[in-house]
């Protein structure tokens, strides 16, 4: 089962991605059931076909030219709820790292994805599976059964309150570092994480 899934995932990934020539060269060719001979595999593994490093270096924007301003860095840190740099050296280091990460992302962005539907997650997308996950009147029959309809205007109400299930059966405050009564409490000023 797991094998079938993997295979399907790879297949889907291939169907979705039309690699640009430059990127294709970086990617190890897909080895399907056709590769029967151990020798072929050994041969293929003998030499590295690409390296992560290539993604960090080869780009139109030279590594010296800054793509991210200090202001942008601070904005991004704020959005991410991360601490601002303590000093200039730390700031420079952050900018340098971010630059290199950006180049990596840009390498991925250069893949031509025109007309490709993004893959959000791996799921069974077969017709049967889609049909199975469809929400129908029958799926919700127990919920409809709890409703009451009164009067001539179709007014809807609900009979009994919902029953407690085990998902609620734990102490939500158990791991809270600080509580006030039944509330979880946060200090209004805390040191940066």
């Amino acid at each position, binding site marked *: 089962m797991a094998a079938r899934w993997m295979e399907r995932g790879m297949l889907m990934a291939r169907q979705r991605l039309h690699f640009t020539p430059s990127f294709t060269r970086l990617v190890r060719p897909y080895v399907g059931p056709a590769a029967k001979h151990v020798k072929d595999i050994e041969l293929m593994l003998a030499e590295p076909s690409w390296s992560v490093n290539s993604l960090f270096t080869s780009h139109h924007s030279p590594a010296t030219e800054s793509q991210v301003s200090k202001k942008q860095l601070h904005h991004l840190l704020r959005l991410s709820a991360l601490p601002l740099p303590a000093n200039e050296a730390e700031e420079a280091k952050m900018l340098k*790292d971010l630059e290199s990460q950006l180049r990596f992302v840009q390498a991925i962005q250069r893949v031509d994805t025109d007309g490709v539907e993004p893959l959000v997650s791996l799921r069974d997308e077969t017709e049967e599976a889609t049909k199975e996950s469809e929400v129908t009147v029958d799926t919700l029959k127990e919920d409809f059964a709890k409703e009451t309809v009164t009067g001539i205007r179709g007014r809807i109400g609900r009979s009994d309150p*919902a029953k407690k299930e085990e998902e609620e059966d734990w102490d939500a405050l158990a791991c809270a570092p600080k509580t006030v009564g039944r509330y*979880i409490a946060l200090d209004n000023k805390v040191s940066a994480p």
Partner: protein
Amino acid sequence: MSIASPALRLRTNSDQLLSRLLTPLLPKPILSWRLVQQVPRGLGTATLSDSDVPYRNQLKKEAKRRRAVKHLSNEETEKKDARLEKWELTVGIEVHAQLNTERKLFSRARTSIDAEPNSHVAVFDLAYPGTQPNFQKATLIPALRAAIAFNCTIQRRSRFDRKHYFYPDQPAGYQITQYYEPYAKNGSIILYDHDGIDPEDGHSVTIAIKQIQMEQDTAKTIQQDSVTLLDFNRVSHPLIEIITLPQIHSPQTAAACVKKIQATLQAVNAVTTGMEMGGLRADVNVSVRLRDCPGELAASSSYSGITGLGQRTEIKNLSSFKAVEDAIIAERDRQIEVLESGGVIEGETRGWTLGNTATTRLRGKEGEVDYRYMPDPDLAPIIISEELITHISDTLPELPDTSLKELVDDFKLTLKDAKTLISIDDGKRLAYFDQVLAGLVKALRAEEYQGTLEQCLRDPSITKADKVEYARLVANWAIHEYGSVTASSESASVTAEKRPIVLVHVLQYLVKKKITGQSAKKLFLLALETPGRPVGELIKEENLELKDIPRAEYLRMAQGLIDANQETAEKVRKGHQGKLMWFVGQMMKDGKGSIEAQRAKEVLEELLAVGSS
């Protein structure tokens, strides 16, 4: 292919930055944070608001306003505000409504309103690492009812996305919402003059609804001096966000729109409480532009596909209809002021507190890019069957517009009474009216009727034509006398709603002229307070039965009153109608419920020669 693959996790210190910006894969409990001056994003906590003003007062005000406008001459209208002639206001509305569901959006924890803090929480609701969302399909029922009530096209396939921001009321670091593929699109809502729209909008105006999306509510926060208290009972309560196109051009119409959205949601049982209880909250976006502006002066902003608008600002967390109207007026005037003095409107989020005359800046508006929306990989798309849409559509409760039409056009109720019946007690009073009306028709036909009122409602032999005759009488009792008995007696208020049959019996005796109107009121209260006693028995016991008082007795009483009140009598002779009714009142009082008002009036008119001189 998602870039959020573990293989791409990097190594340095700023990995954190990249991973938080781009790959928020695992929910992390963010329990430490820096206090940013921000509006809480959840629905506001319950506050007392202007909507607590009794509903009928509000209706009266609306009617008064309508009359006032009618009398305004053209000249006066022109003088109203020259600036508004020059500048056009444009408003779009977002309404967040708490869905009426048993459980949360992504866990089996129950929804609650006033429960003990943090008592209805699943581990996922606190974003414990490794926990997975479990979409509760039943939440689709109220969501679909709302979307169908607003004429939306239901998307057979929709999806959930993550909207990232850090705030302690939302422990995952993102809110799960529907950004790319909402479940409902392209709806509309029609606002009529009786909904309280601006008279300049004419008889009716249609506002397009761009989309409705499902999303999570946030936790309730309580700010104290040094700490913030968090109650996660509300976190992940299912919400819908209804987004209108910017097609509203008047503050009054905007308020009417929110009001009607609430009434519609309540009618189809999509929500449990209204704005006054915090179950609904509105955000408005406001912009102004010159009405006639050729060429380079033309406003250039656009959103939701509407172009040529001025720069807009957003006012968040409005928790009453009046706040919606007042906040828009204040923001409109502020923007015109800024623009006329040569300034520029900044895209920003502003706040409004009731009683204020101006909006205040809260924060610069985040660009949508700052929320780093991404499809939630943990949640499968929602696929809704055609059959489910049809079923919900076919069983949708009657919408307020339809009820109103029947009450006014067929039953000849006044607009005010019809609107009151529909809106008070969350629709229950209208159901009460229906039951009493059908029951009365049946009771007047057969002396001994054994069926239930619910059966009566479905009795095909009772036609609309049968009901019309008594509709105004029943409406009058269902609104006014119901109101006064429940106000005057605690025990009656408990039973009135549950025992419509009591009113059927009381009205039955009244219509047959077995009792006077005055006795009927007394009887109604008495019967509610003493359950189990047949109304007929009470009439005998309390001696309420209308005795056939001879005309001579009427004449004697009337003459006695006239003799004792010569001056007043003289006024009546001179045509003072009000004083005549005073005499009628006195006679009824003296008669202790045995005097019929109409007969008393006739006798008095005769003795005082009213109308003959």
